[in-house]
């Protein structure tokens, strides 16, 4: 399988400003998270999406509000792109009851029923069977909704990946598998974890429509996701898209990064999806002088507000510790 990055049409460039704003929003939000983590306002495991923003932003742009998303522990970006507020995510990471999961989940477990955001799953490949089931539900109910399932390339070594691909294809379900291939699963490079490193080829073995795309190019990501979502929604069964991307930061906040060179990271940073789009829009005359600065100001304001909201948030009373274990309270 080869990478297909169709040349974007003019209307795509026109929408480019919104995509740039959205990617910047994800980036700045997480940069603030790093500061807050250092200040011990955010705790636990925290995984950053910095460098991979084009994937979530490009992909979510093709979803309808009533489509579902299932993601991993590296999901701040997906949550923001799906419409969860910066406030509710930040409050969650502060462990506040105002957080999108009432402070029960933290960074790895963001949820939002209203926006059909089904988490934040921190068991690698644990979200894939859920996505299959969500899509099965839509199909059985005759709804034309799609489920977008995001996961890292490392998940493809798990049994749950293979079982899910087979079920989705066998039952021709409206699910889109979005594989974020950032080349590493913690410290394990793709070549050290997969016998077949052409991931789309692997997925295609299940009779799932599969292809790869440049994950550093948000317009290409958007085009690929749109194609996949259209196929799934039209009853064409599941699709698999491999987004070739890279995480610029450590796996989590505790990673000594012994497994890759600084040069490699620097090389990929040259392909920063935000800079790339900014250049393209500027060259094509779609980004006026001062527009980027205005975006930055707006975003900084939104994040300041989110942090203030989280700071002022309240704690779930300890008496309610076991309140949400079962919907029907047991004695």
């Amino acid at each position, binding site marked *: 399988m080869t990478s297909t990055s169709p040349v974007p049409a003019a209307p795509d460039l026109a929408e480019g400003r919104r995509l740039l704003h959205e990617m910047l929003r994800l980036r700045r939000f997480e940069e603030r998270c790093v500061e807050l983590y250092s200040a011990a306002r955010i705790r636990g*495991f925290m995984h950053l999406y910095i460098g991979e923003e084009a994937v979530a932003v490009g992909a979510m742009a093709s979803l309808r509000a009533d489509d579902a998303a299932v993601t991993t522990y590296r999901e701040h970006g997906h949550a923001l792109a799906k419409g969860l507020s910066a406030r509710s995510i930040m409050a969650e990471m502060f*462990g506040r009851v105002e957080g999108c999961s009432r*402070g029960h989940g933290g960074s790895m477990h963001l949820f939002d029923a209203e926006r059909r955001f089904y988490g934040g799953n921190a068991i690698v*490949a*644990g979200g894939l069977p859920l996505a299959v089931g969500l899509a099965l539900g839509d199909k059985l109910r005759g709804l034309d909704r799609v489920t977008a399932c995001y996961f890292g390339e490392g998940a493809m070594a*798990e049994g749950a990946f293979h079982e899910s691909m087979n079920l989705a294809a066998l039952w021709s379900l409206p699910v889109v598998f979005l594989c974020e291939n950032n080349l590493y*699963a*913690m410290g*394990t490079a793709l070549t050290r974890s997969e016998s077949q490193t052409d991931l789309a080829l692997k997925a295609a073995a299940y009779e799932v429509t599969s292809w790869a795309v440049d994950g550093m190019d948000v317009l290409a990501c958007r085009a690929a996701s749109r194609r996949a979502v259209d196929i799934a929604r039209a009853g064409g069964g599941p699709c698999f898209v491999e987004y070739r991307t890279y995480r610029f930061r450590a796996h989590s906040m505790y990673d000594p990064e*012994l497994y890759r060179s600084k040069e490699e990271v620097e090389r990929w940073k040259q392909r920063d999806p935000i800079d790339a789009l900014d250049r393209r829009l500027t060259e094509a005359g779609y980004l006026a002088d001062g527009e980027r600065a205005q975006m930055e100001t707006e975003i900084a304001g939104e994040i300041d507000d989110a942090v203030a909201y989280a700071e002022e948030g309240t704690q779930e009373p300890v008496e309610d510790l076991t309140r949400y274990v079962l919907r029907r309270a047991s004695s």
Partner: protein
Amino acid sequence: MTAPAPGPTTTTFRQAYREALRDALRRDELAFLMGEDVGMYGGCFGVSTGLLEEFGPERVRDTPLSEAGFVGAGIGAALNGMHPIVEVMTVNFSLLALDQIMNNAASMLHMSGGQFNVPLVIRMTTGAGRQLAAQHSHSLEGWFGHIPGIRVLAPGTLEDARGMLWTALQDPDPVLIFENGRLYGTEGELAPDAGPVEIDHAAVRRAGTDLTLITYGGSLPRALEAAELLLADGISAEVVDLRTLRPLDTTTILASVSRTHRAVVVDEAWRTGSLSAEVSARIMEGAFYELDAPVARVCGAEVPIPYAQHLEQAALPQPEDIALAARELVQDHG
């Protein structure tokens, strides 16, 4: 004249576990370590840092994310004469391999009419307290303690962190070692000649006369702290460290309770259908007439572990909770 023996050195649980692995890989050429990110990454909690450089990629083997696959492969290699040490990052992920552990490793010897034993060691992290929420924080060692055909160890001291692995490797049967994640960074003194320890008995970590606190692993330091708190109230608590959760050393438990006549079982795992229930039942079965009070339990709250710090701490047995339960036992049943 002989040189004075070198004194104890300050070390952490993490280092003690690492020394145990290094020692095993040096002394036993059939031993090898396998698991996710044990090599190039240096171990997800830094336990195996440096071992890849020393022993090479064949013996410090990084695996893909395939818990069922590589745990099962460890069983196969053990059947074929190797001494695998398989690392699963945390107990929550071991559920992906539970089928292999239970349906193969634990059942093989009996199912094959005594032909195939499985000399395998599986290590994994357990426990809460680091705000890792509901998919990284549980204490399921008691579940594994339910299964005949395996041995379950839970080091709560540096000596055991350093010494249990070698003895486990000599065992002809599958042994699971549960390393409490909170303890990795805990520092203490360890004798320079610390080595293998026996894995058949519980240990009295502190002698006392008024009641027995029975615990293991990550709750051991908390029970010892509670014993200090109780001393201030004039209550003398004995602390028993189970060490081996299966098979349970009932003799040591009953002997202690027969001396103190009261028992509090402390376990951060859930209470219902648990190891703490098993310990309590054994006391009732074996020392009922020695008891001056019903056996009490201090366990983790029955909730998937929450992220928010105040909720997580409230879900776990704290020294104050243990001391409170102990005080009630002594005062209400003096």
